[in-house]
């Protein structure tokens, strides 16, 4: 009897937490045309962090496909990211990073902020987007600084 009383509040707390967690992790955004006008997080993107996500193998690993200003080692599957901040607005950049299949259904570029409609995802990564909402914002912040075509 006493035990039951002790457990109930614990469960309630746990439930409340998991709800917060689910909200925090839910991968959702609203696209308008070819852009996502509203930032995914309230914290503004940090461009310095964004750069390290772009070039890092454990982050976005964008250099697998894109040339990136200041990097010597990169793939040549995709156009260079130099000047991308002049070609596209932050809102357009956000959609291309979050889910570029919305712009080109056959693109090889992974959807970095999407968990639905994927097939046979390895168990360790299932239900998780490649980048968190904050990471997407950081990346967009850095891309937006790339005004010069090299």
């Amino acid at each position, binding site marked *: 009897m006493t035990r039951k009383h002790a457990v109930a509040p614990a469960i309630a707390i746990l439930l409340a937490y998991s709800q917060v967690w689910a909200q925090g992790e839910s991968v959702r955004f609203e696209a308008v045309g070819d852009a996502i006008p509203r930032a995914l997080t309230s914290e503004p993107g940090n461009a310095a962090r964004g750069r390290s996500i772009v070039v890092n193998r454990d982050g976005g690993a964008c250099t*697998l496909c894109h040339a990136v200003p200041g990097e010597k080692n990169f793939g040549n599957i995709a156009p260079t990211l130099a000047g991308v901040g002049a070609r596209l607005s932050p809102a357009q950049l956000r959609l291309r990073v979050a889910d570029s299949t919305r712009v080109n259904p056959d693109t090889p570029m992974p959807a970095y902020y999407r968990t639905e409609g994927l097939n046979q995802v390895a168990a360790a990564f299932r239900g998780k987007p*490649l980048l968190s909402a904050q990471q997407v914002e950081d990346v967009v912040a850095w891309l937006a600084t790339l005004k010069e075509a090299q």
Partner: protein
Amino acid sequence: MRRARARLALAAAALAAGVVLAQERAIPPGELKSGSVFLGSDLRALQNDDFANPGMLWVERGERLWSELAGKKTLACASCHKDTSMRGVAASYPKIDKASGKLVNLEDRINLCRTGRMDAEPLRYESEELLALTAYVARQSLGLPIATRIDGAARAHFEAGRAAYHLRRGQMNLSCAHCHDAQWGKRLLSETISQGHPNAYPAYRMEWQTIGSLQRRIRACLSGIRAEMLPYGSPEYLDLELYLAWRAQGLPIETPGVRR
């Protein structure tokens, strides 16, 4: 009369399917390139030198195993295959096994001989023995063009393989075609993507420091895009192997390949 017309319709359909197939090839026969074309000259030289190619150790081991007695019937492969050459055999796999009606690859075929004829235990996928025997048999088709069949019972497997090849999958949401049809010759970071052909397998891979099967290579691609890996010998892998062989139709066998 009705029968004749039905037969005619069937023939027309088959012809149409043949035409579609010929047009459907993402890489036309004249543009087929072996994976070795995309290697550095050092690895290509290593593959072409029989004395230096590390994969030849498995071919030699396979040659010894070929005559080794095994199973309750104490038979060797050589006991049955006395006068028949294995030349050209690997080039026709995967194929439908007549007895079971199932699609089998060369590894499965070797194991069918062991269990069915020799009363021996099947060899485990990626075991040294199975890799050695497979490499030894495949080596005897060196230079012969891949010539698999996709008619009859193989047809459904071919279609399934084609679907598997074009399925976007994994956290990176890529299909085999995204890399090996659309981007071959381009660099993924510093690695040049080849056309993804099966003609060098089993192949010695520097990264593995050993020889591995085609399925092991496919699993490496799947793991790269963070996709689920199926158990060795899964029907989906066999279907994929058949589709890969069809894509590579005409490409000469070069087992054991040497790869990065």
